[in-house]
């Protein structure tokens, strides 16, 4: 019963938050909405796929930014025409969207199938390798990436005004959040949690463990691809450096800041990250103590360190602890406790 009360309270808070976000364009400056919040939603959506795979599948993936990048590059190649960089296929924007998502999903399935026999640190390393290889593929095959990136990418007319892009980000974020959360109790989600906790047992119950992992990876890749589309529309361009190892780690760090086992945390972590990068320079004295833009990553690093020391479950863990004296029995904790004997 207690659990149910807490869940509804949480749902209410989240619903209120979404309401504020819906009204935000008339409450906040255009800069805050179109720059800070749109970016937060895009990065949060991508980071949520890391949380989904980690929390329900026990797979910590470093390949999510690659999926994000593949979708962006494929859209750029398909949608632009004449004179622009890349393949210049000149397709209708929505055909380009379909093409980008198809390629991303197929890539996610193939990469997921290859990685599906590994777990833990090996899975992490393998997906890191994916990220590195993906970077080099785009950096070296300039026909599909530039040269020097694909620029002047236009978004579909439907998303023309910047605030529409914000709403698209909000809509996809809410859908992804609700979908990922609901999946926990579906056949697919239950099986995924089973695969996470005891793959041998799952196999003896008749499940194809490797296929299940590959499908989860595909789903996460699809969602990361959607975030990647929003990203190229927001940025108007994409270059190989944006999917190199640095940004790959940053996406993981965003998930860790929020709490790698908390879906909400993905967006919270993205918000903190974007805030730091946007406003740190405006704080008084930061120049005086030598924090220049080039050192912002150091600041992020210190923040991550502080959060990890205070709470391995990230900001969400801290919020939870502040709310109740004794630590509440959060579903997350129970799910993670699944591996405990």
């Amino acid at each position, binding site marked *: 019963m207690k659990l149910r009360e807490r869940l509804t309270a949480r749902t209410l808070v989240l619903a209120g938050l979404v309401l504020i976000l819906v009204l935000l364009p008339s409450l906040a400056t255009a800069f805050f909405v179109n720059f800070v919040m749109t970016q937060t939603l895009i990065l949060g959506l991508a980071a949520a796929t890391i949380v989904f795979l980690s929390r329900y599948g026990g797979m910590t993936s470093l390949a999510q930014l690659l999926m994000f990048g593949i979708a962006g590059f494929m859209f750029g190649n398909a949608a632009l025409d004449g004179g622009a960089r890349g393949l210049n296929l000149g397709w209708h924007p929505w055909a380009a969207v379909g093409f980008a998502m198809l390629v991303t999903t197929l890539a996610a399935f193939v990469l997921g199938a290859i990685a599906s026999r590994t777990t833990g640190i090996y899975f992490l390393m393998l997906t890191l390798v994916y990220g590195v290889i993906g970077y080099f593929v785009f950096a070296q095959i300039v026909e599909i990436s530039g040269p020097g990136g694909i620029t002047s990418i236009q978004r579909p007319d439907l998303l023309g005004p910047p605030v529409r892009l914000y709403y698209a980000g909000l809509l996809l974020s809410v859908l992804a959040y609700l979908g990922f959360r609901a999946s926990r109790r579906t056949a697919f989600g*239950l099986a995924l949690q*089973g695969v996470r906790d005891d793959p041998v047992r799952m196999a003896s119950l*008749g499940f194809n463990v490797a296929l299940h992992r590959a499908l989860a990876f595909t789903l996460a890749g699809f969602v990361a691809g959607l975030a990647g589309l929003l990203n190229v529309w927001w940025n108007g361009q994409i270059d190989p450096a944006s999917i190199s190892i640095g940004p790959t780690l940053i996406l993981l760090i965003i998930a860790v800041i929020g709490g790698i086992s908390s879906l909400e945390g993905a967006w919270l972590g993205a918000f903190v990250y974007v805030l730091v990068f946007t406003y740190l320079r405006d704080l008084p004295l930061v120049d005086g103590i030598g924090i220049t833009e080039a050192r912002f990553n150091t600041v992020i690093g210190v923040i991550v360190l502080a959060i990890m020391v205070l709470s391995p479950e990230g900001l969400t863990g801290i919020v939870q602890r502040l709310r109740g004296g004794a630590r509440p029995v959060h579903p997350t904790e129970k799910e993670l*406790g699944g591996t*405990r004997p």
Partner: protein
Amino acid sequence: MASVVQVSAVTVAFGGLRALRGIDLDIARGERLAVIGPNGAGKTTLFNVIAGDIAPTTGAVVIKGQDCTYRPSRHRPRLGLARTYQKARAFAGLTVRENIYLALAGHRGRHRALWRSSADRAMRDEAAEVAAQVWLSGQVDAVAGELAHGQRRQLELAMAVATRPDVMLLDEPASGLSRGERERLVELLESFDEQLTLLVIEHDMDVAFRIAQRVVVMADGEQVTAGTPEQVRADPHVHRIYLGTEAVA
């Protein structure tokens, strides 16, 4: 009678350790077989080979006429085979109902749905019925990780019973149960359909001898002897290697 499970000349080596050294076993349909033996005899390893969790180093496993020696475990449920594990291995983060539901979903190959269908709801209801069969109706929506030890063993059993297998392998189903719970377990095992083939590893002689028609005694990866419960109980050999050391178990 047709044999359901045939194990021929199976050996299993874990590095230098030879856990099984040539086991032959022919199990008839509807047979109730108990496997006993001291710790480390290779009983669980034998089950792992039959259930496909590990492939034998040499030898062959044939189930219902099909060569399953190298077939992975995930094909066993569709052959009608289910097993339990010595250490209860239910999913601690899921409820009793969800655990049993997974057993049903795995058996029926319906587990990729991203939404809840009516077939899905039916399986959830069915899971609750199965829970009732093993006296867990009061705990249907309890989280498995919070069950008492005996209840976890019951859930382990429920996950095997759920799919109505015709070959069932139970690895020490009575371990850790109270006297009353053991009594109920024996009653449950005796209530199964005659056609069900039952293989039970059991340290509790009382339980083993009551449910078994045939008892196989193993030690050091080999079959020491086999026979009816009476024959085995009277075998001086068994006394020396096993019953004498029962205090260890």
